[in-house]
């Protein structure tokens, strides 16, 4: 089943993304967080069996966190990007790892880098970062320069090398 037909059946508004270079059509839609699971299930049964990625975008001005669930169908050769928006100050969602197992890994990363909580995922511990004690670093308000100055300028220089610095 074509993506457009599924969108029409579910009554979801969609837009087509611009494509140059590649050739298959890509559709983007904004959906309600509480309906997302059902929508992904519907797409999965209609041939969208390749879960490409879960991306997170921090829209700091709008006060939103956008989660983009990206699916691809090897049958109809179409890409679908399903976006949900969560409040930025307390982003919380449920895990969808039972639909596609690799979502677990993406959720671990989004949790660590953006601070989004995924209820039901028990592996949201340390993943890429080690001993991190600041705000999630991929958030737009994380000041990298300030962090480096605070963290590393207090580290004493190696003895004997102070004059040369």
């Amino acid at each position, binding site marked *: 089943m074509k993506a457009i037909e599924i969108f029409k059946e579910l009554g979801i508004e969609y837009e087509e*993304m*611009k494509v140059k*270079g590649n050739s298959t059509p890509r559709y983007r839609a904004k959906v309600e967080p509480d309906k997302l699971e059902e929508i992904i299930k519907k797409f999965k049964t209609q041939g969208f069996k*390749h879960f490409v990625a879960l991306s997170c975008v921090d829209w700091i001005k709008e006060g939103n966190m956008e989660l983009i669930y990206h699916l691809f169908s090897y049958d109809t050769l179409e890409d679908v990007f399903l976006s949900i928006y969560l409040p930025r100050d307390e982003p919380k969602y449920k895990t969808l790892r039972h639909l596609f197992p690799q979502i677990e890994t993406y959720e671990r990363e989004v949790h660590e880098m953006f601070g989004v909580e995924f209820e039901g995922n028990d592996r949201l511990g340390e993943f890429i970062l080690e001993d991190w004690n600041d705000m999630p670093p*991929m958030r737009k308000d994380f000041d990298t320069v300030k962090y480096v100055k605070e963290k590393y300028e207090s580290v004493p220089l190696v003895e004997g090398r102070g004059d040369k610095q």
Partner: protein
Amino acid sequence: MKEFEIFVGPQHVGATGNMMYHVWVDGDTVVKAETHVGYLHRAFEKLMERRSWLMNVALIPRICVPEPDVNEASYAMAVESLMNWDIPERAKYIRSIVLELARLSGHLLAISGYAGAIGLYTVPQWLIGDRDYLLDLFEQLTGGRVYHIFIFPGGVRWDLPDGFLRKLGKVLDYLESRLKLYDDLLFQNKVFFERAPDVGVIPKDKAIEWGVTGPNLRACGYAYDVRRVDPYAAYPDLDFEIPHYPKFGEFEVLGHGCDCYSRMVVRRLEIEQSIRILRQIIKKIPDGPHTLKLPNPIAWKVPAGYAYARVESSKGEFGYLVISDGGKVPYRVHVRGPSYTHGINVMEKIAPGLNIADFAPTAFSLDVCPPDIER
């Protein structure tokens, strides 16, 4: 029997780079494995939000060291989508040359790693030596051997140097003549026949659902290749086959697919296909400009929007989701690397039940490249 914990990596002959597998074994059998990454994290995605659209081209090749060009190509295609640019035909062909050379180089490294893991150490020495001829070509074309920074939005940096295609033809002839030797060393070797079939099996019905792509998916019997399902560059004009289980041509079909044997034979057959593609390009490459006329690179503004571009790397689907808010820098870039699923999710699922001696070969047969997990 008592359970033991073993750490494979980050500095270990059986790890495919700077990553670690935390393995629990009962006797010789793996009970559980967990992947630990983070040794290569440099926050590329964050850095990209601070650099101009063009500066990023110099940054992103570092996301995959053995095959850097796929990053440049997919990023460039995503930016072109947002800019609504159609690049010249010649640029598409030159991009295909670079991407196929990168694929050859990636496959030679993958086969080297696998052969080393099953104890056939001559293979890596010969293949790494042969790969140097490909790096010579890269040096002549781009100025760099490892990182090329050659494909950028709008086309490629410069045209092919004089005599490049002749030299390319010679290297392809040489590489083709060496394939027989690779077969004698590895692909027709009894050690390979004994140790590869039905080892590290991904369940065929789960392969797509688990996010397996590239040669690993084709080894499961699906003839899916981004060059065909979502064509880019000059691939729509080129004729090539997609090697997949059980269509192995002159190679015997051992095992039941989805195993180390199929994954490595698919890679070996793809070398032949890459040579075939490159020979077609040498004959068909059109004349014309190699790039569009570009605006002032410092004042580039990319229209707001979302764009996703994907290419087929030697490891699987490599994609860039680029989001612009209309500014001079990207608002957000998300890199979808094939190793993200292969190295963590798939490896953790197929490891239980493996003999500990088969753990490293299985990891190598998935061809995991840790930098694209962490970015």
